[in-house]
């Protein structure tokens, strides 16, 4: 009995041990699994979970507006939607393709080809920058795998009128040309990022934290006056068309502050129409293109002669017989102008007279005044692609070069440099600091001429637009205008061309208390008429007449008050 009992007990004990062992094993297994999940794979699993629920989303930030000096919008970023797809999802959902193709207004085959090409990727743009209403229509279709992304598109309400000055942005709203490029860092918005929790349908449930706060771009107020800009645009375009010219530029400056009030070029382009850009039309010629300034330089030759005390405005210079031999070369006038005073050299634009004056001063003196007036160096406007022109060091000049420099050949300048140098004369000898931004406080420029010299030059330049001067057509009724014409032959491979010219006029008004300086450049007028005084001067007159009226500048021509006294009440 006892043996049987013992045996039973042992069996029972063994069984219970086995059972315990099995339970212990199960317990260990569970523990190990729990350890694996909770400790070893914890990060991986947590990551997986969060990947399904949590997202870091971009918060778009718009680009700053560009405004004119009176606050009119010139460039505005408006929200648009870009349609993108996850091809892996969309490829599985072929039924929706016809609807989608219709909503995007693309051919079905094209859509299929696009998706097939991108089938390995997770992201493909179907269409960028559709209007918000089109975007809403696509969102309404609720096609799995098709999503919208908020973006901004740049619009330029003034179109071609401000095309060159503003430039444009690329599809990602980054500046590519013009002021959009120059001030990109100021204008650009920094998109933010947010960490969010979303539900199964992709709706945001909770914002966990802001990774980076979105910073919209800052607005930029330009020095440009939209009304003057349009005026300059209209007159330049008309003149370029009338004369069949290749291209042209107009710049209007505030002579005291150096603010650019208007800057236009032809041919132009419409920055809203990204597809239709022609490379040649994109250039802001007023700052990127250089040319030989021709007769417009004579003013500074005269300035050098006056500054050195060689002559006074009334000194007589004999230019007969309209030719001057310098070494092996001959400088010519169009006609024999005989004996001229120094003012008459400017008024009649005599090459011989200017050469004589240039040869009467030291090369250093001539170079110095050209250099002080800002030729041969960048104007500091910071406009992308600005050219600095060229002005050779005086120690390398030969005699003939010194003579031709005197009437503007042998150096090259930009339209901006030219108008800035004349603005210095207008401002009493202080070279203004060029800016495209509206100035809130005055910036003192560098003095390059004495006040007396500037006043003397102004008086002589007034003669150019009066009876008998080459620039009569630049005259503006009611105002006194000072300026200088220029007609420069274009240099070609074998010397100077005889039928390709640049017609120039540069000047300022009103002469008694100058406010505005402007330059008009017409490149290769095609017809019989090609002199600066015939082609460029009328544009100057129209633009500045309109600008003075818009800016409410008091007429300063004393003849006005005598003449108008008789016409009181006769306004019909």
């Amino acid at each position: 009995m006892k043996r049987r009992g013992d045996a039973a007990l042992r069996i029972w004990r063994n069984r219970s041990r086995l059972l315990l062992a099995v339970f212990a094993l199960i317990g260990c297994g569970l523990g190990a699994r729990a350890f694996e999940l909770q400790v070893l794979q914890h990060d991986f699993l947590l990551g997986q979970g969060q990947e399904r629920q949590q997202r870091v989303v971009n918060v778009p930030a718009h680009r700053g507006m560009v405004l004119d000096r009176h606050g009119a919008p010139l460039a505005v970023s408006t929200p648009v939607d870009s349609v993108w797809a996850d091809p892996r999802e969309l490829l599985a959902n072929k039924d929706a393709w016809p609807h989608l193709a219709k909503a995007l207004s693309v051919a079905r085959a094209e859509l299929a080809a696009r998706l097939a090409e991108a089938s390995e990727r997770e992201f493909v743009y179907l269409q960028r920058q559709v209007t918000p209403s089109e975007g809403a229509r696509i969102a309404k279709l609720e096609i799995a795998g098709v999503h919208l992304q908020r973006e901004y598109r740049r619009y330029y309400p003034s179109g071609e009128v401000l095309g060159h000055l503003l430039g444009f942005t690329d599809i990602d709203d980054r500046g590519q040309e013009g002021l959009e490029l120059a001030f990109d860092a100021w204008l650009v918005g920094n998109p933010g990022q947010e960490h969010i929790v979303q539900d199964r349908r992709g709706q945001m449930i909770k914002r966990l934290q802001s990774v980076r706060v979105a910073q919209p771009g800052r607005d930029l107020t330009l020095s440009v006056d939209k009304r003057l800009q349009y005026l300059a645009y209209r007159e330049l375009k008309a003149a370029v068309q009338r004369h069949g010219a290749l291209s042209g530029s107009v710049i209007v400056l505030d002579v005291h502050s150096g603010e650019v009030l208007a800057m236009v070029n032809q041919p132009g382009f419409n920055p809203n129409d990204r597809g239709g850009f022609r490379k040649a039309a994109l250039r802001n010629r007023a700052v990127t293109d250089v040319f030989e300034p021709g007769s417009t330089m004579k003013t500074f030759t005269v300035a050098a002669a006056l500054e050195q005390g060689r002559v006074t405005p009334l000194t007589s210079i004999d230019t007969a017989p309209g030719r001057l031999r310098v070494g092996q070369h001959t400088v010519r006038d169009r006609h024999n102008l005989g004996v001229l005073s120094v003012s008459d050299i400017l008024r009649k634009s005599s090459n011989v007279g200017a050469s004589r004056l240039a040869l009467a001063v030291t090369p250093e003196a001539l170079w110095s005044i050209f250099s002080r007036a800002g030729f041969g160096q960048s104007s500091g406007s910071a406009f992308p692609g600005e050219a600095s022109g060229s002005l050779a060091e005086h120690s390398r000049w030969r005699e003939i070069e010194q003579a031709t420099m005197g009437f503007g050949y042998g150096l090259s300048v930009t339209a901006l440099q030219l108008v800035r140098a004349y603005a210095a004369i207008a401002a009493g000898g202080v070279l203004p600091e060029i800016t495209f931004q509206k100035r809130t406080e005055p910036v003192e420029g560098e003095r390059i001429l004495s006040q007396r010299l500037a006043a003397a030059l102004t008086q002589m330049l007034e003669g150019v637009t009066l009876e008998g001067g080459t620039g009569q057509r630049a005259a503006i009724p009611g105002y006194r205008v000072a300026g200088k014409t220029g007609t420069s032959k274009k240099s070609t491979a074998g010397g100077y061309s005889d039928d390709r010219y640049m017609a120039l006029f540069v000047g300022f008004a009103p002469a008694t208390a100058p406010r505005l300086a402007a330059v008009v450049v017409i490149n290769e007028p095609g017809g019989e008429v090609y002199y600066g005084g015939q082609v460029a001067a009328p544009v100057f007159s129209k633009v500045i007449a309109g600008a003075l009226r818009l800016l409410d500048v008091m007429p300063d021509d004393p003849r006005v008050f005598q003449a108008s006294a008789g016409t009181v009440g006769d306004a019909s």
Partner: protein
Amino acid sequence: MRARVVAMLLLTPVLISTALGVVYTQHVSRSLVVQLQEQKQGRDDLNIEWSRLLLERSTWATHARVERLARERLGMHTPSFAEMEVVRR
């Protein structure tokens, strides 16, 4: 022992009410998030509308158009200098 029971009886409703509080604030926060989203959407819509109107206005008010209307419809012209009166203050 008695003190424990009393504490438990007191703390249980507190526990339940804070639990409900958590649920409630969760709910409120979610609906606020939804509201925030809606407001942002509204802001975007207004921005879109504003820039559309801005562009529309500048299209209608283009200098070229205003000038053409003034000339053609209203028969206006830029006065020549002879037609002007200069008034000195």
